[in-house]
């Protein structure tokens, strides 16, 4: 297996999953179902892309689920008070960037371990969300059509989040593969010391990836808000783990320096298809979790088997 290119294991797992899914349920290949699955891929994939940037630098961001909740309730409150949609969206994105700044600042300049720093932010940001929403859900009234289209609407028969996800993926892929900044991210993740010696501003690179992750989490929070049309301070619990799972299934190494946008898209597809087919097949809720966990381990094993043992 030594000479197989990167991603073979994941691609194989995806193909097997798709064939199995279409055999298990006649509804799987139904166009509406495929669009539903792709929308799920988009909702979680956006978080996965942000997480990919962070994990590439050997970091982790546990605060993304809380950012989704905070953005959801803040957006709902602002809309309830009649703020114009573009301004509300800007403020929400700024909130994501701000949390990213706090994370990035602590990690890169104060050298707080990423796990601890973002864990702190996760708890704190969730607290802010609960404070703003007073514990309950916030109902902004009827959503403006221009905002509803972001998460709940369609363009040319395809759910809007899929376009958003596609745009995010293209930009992320270009940044990672064709820019100096992208190469710096890989360099910092593979060997921080070597990166520093070759003149890369390591703290700045690390600082930036957390802002990217925060902004993408805020974008995802806006899509969730649009889709649910209420802000729920308890939403997005465990989303950070979902995003990490997607990234890792996609072949990004938790030890940094290795991973691609394409892999993360694949990871998001594996998770979304598993969840979909288990529901279509009517598997009992408890066994669903067992199967889901087992497939995740299997997918990562397949990808790991590709590499020669050191």
């Amino acid at each position, binding site marked *: 297996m030594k000479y197989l290119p990167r991603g073979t294991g994941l691609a194989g797992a995806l193909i097997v999953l798709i064939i199995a899914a279409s055999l298990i349920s006649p509804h799987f290949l139904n166009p509406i179902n495929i669009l539903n699955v792709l929308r799920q891929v988009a909702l979680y994939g956006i978080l996965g892309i942000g997480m990919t940037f962070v994990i590439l630098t050997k970091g982790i961001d546990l605060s993304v689920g809380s950012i989704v909740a905070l953005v959801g309730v803040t957006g709902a409150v602002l809309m309830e008070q009649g703020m114009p949609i573009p301004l509300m969206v800007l403020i929400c994105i700024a909130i994501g960037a701000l949390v990213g700044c706090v994370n990035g600042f602590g990690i890169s300049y104060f050298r707080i371990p990423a796990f601890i720093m973002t864990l702190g932010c996760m708890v704190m940001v969730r607290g802010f969300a609960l404070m703003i929403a007073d514990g309950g*859900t916030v109902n902004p009234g009827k959503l403006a059509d221009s905002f509803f289209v972001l998460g709940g609407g369609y363009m040319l028969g395809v759910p809007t989040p899929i376009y958003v996800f596609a745009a995010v993926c293209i930009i992320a892929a270009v940044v990672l593969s064709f820019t100096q900044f992208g190469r710096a991210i890989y360099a910092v993740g593979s060997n921080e010391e070597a990166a520093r010696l070759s003149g890369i501003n390591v703290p700045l690179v690390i600082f930036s990836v957390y802002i990217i992750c925060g902004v993408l989490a805020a974008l995802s929070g806006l899509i969730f808000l649009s889709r649910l049309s209420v802000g729920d301070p*308890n939403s997005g619990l465990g989303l950070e783990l979902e995003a990490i799972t997607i990234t890792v299934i996609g072949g990004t190494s938790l030890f940094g320096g290795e991973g691609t946008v394409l892999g993360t898209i694949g990871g998001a597809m594996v998770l979304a298809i598993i969840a979909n087919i288990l529901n*279509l097949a009517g598997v009992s*809720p408890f066994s669903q979790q067992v199967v889901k966990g087992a497939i995740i381990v299997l997918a990562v094993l397949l990808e790991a088997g590709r590499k020669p043992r050191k």
Partner: protein
Amino acid sequence: MLNITRRMLIISAGLATVLTAAPAFSADKIIIGFSQASSNSAHRNTMTKRNQAYAAEHFKDVDLLVTNAEGKSAKQISDVESLMVQGMKVLMISAQDSAAIAPTIKQVLAAGIPVITLERSLDIPVTLHVGPHNKPIGTLAGKYIAEALKGKGNVVEIKGDPAVAPAVERHEGFAEAIAGTDIKVIAETHADWDQEKALKFMEDTLQRFPAGQIQAVYAHNDNMAFGALRAIQAAGRDKEGILIIGIDGENAAIRAVAKGDLTATFTYSTVAPEGVIAAHALATNDTAALEKLGTLTKKDDGSMEIEIASKMITKENAAEFFCKGFGDDPECK
């Protein structure tokens, strides 16, 4: 000798100060302690606020001291201890964890202070438990669906978090009510009270069962019922007349029932103002007031219980309940 005289002087001076300077804590005010478990749900926040507001308006003779454990059992223990120090006459408590708080509650009871548990009961006997029961709510929902579908049809059940009693009991009551009818649960999931999870599951389930195969959705709370509603609307299947049933009686759900988006919801009492009324009744030995709150049962171990029955809200009576549930509703402000 001198020492004793000085001490006597200090004590009497102290007593005099307390009696004159602190009328709020003197004999004419009853101190009631209220230890709330957390503030991360609209249900609990409404429980706290409505009891406070009712006490402020109706019980001028009461000082209601409220603490909030923010979801931590350890904090709740020290909260209760500090309420004891402040001289409460009755303790109202909504427990974070029934096992963790039990030893502290035993101490409170041993000190002769009556304890009222709100919504969540404890494993040890206390003076009084006031709250709604989950199983009868599930039964009500089951009977409603069985009747509306004339005893035959397919139901999708969206359950809450399987680790907590309300989800288990709301399921059990429902299952008992539909037993023996031709109502079948054709798909089920644990969406953990989460709207997005319910939406996602319902999307897939609508694919699995084409038009005409689903007659009703039974969701263990209103939040998840909204998730199912959005999936049904997005799939363009809201014309099929699928019944969507929620539980809790959230303000937003009551509006949706009035509009016809949701079919029905069943109230899950916030025990407010019943909680503070019961506490006041115990403090003043007013048994008549207690009996007015609901069905009062006395158990062999000397404890009492008042069950606050659930009310069914459908399109016909929804208007009577506007703003009387809990949770955010722009039109109630």
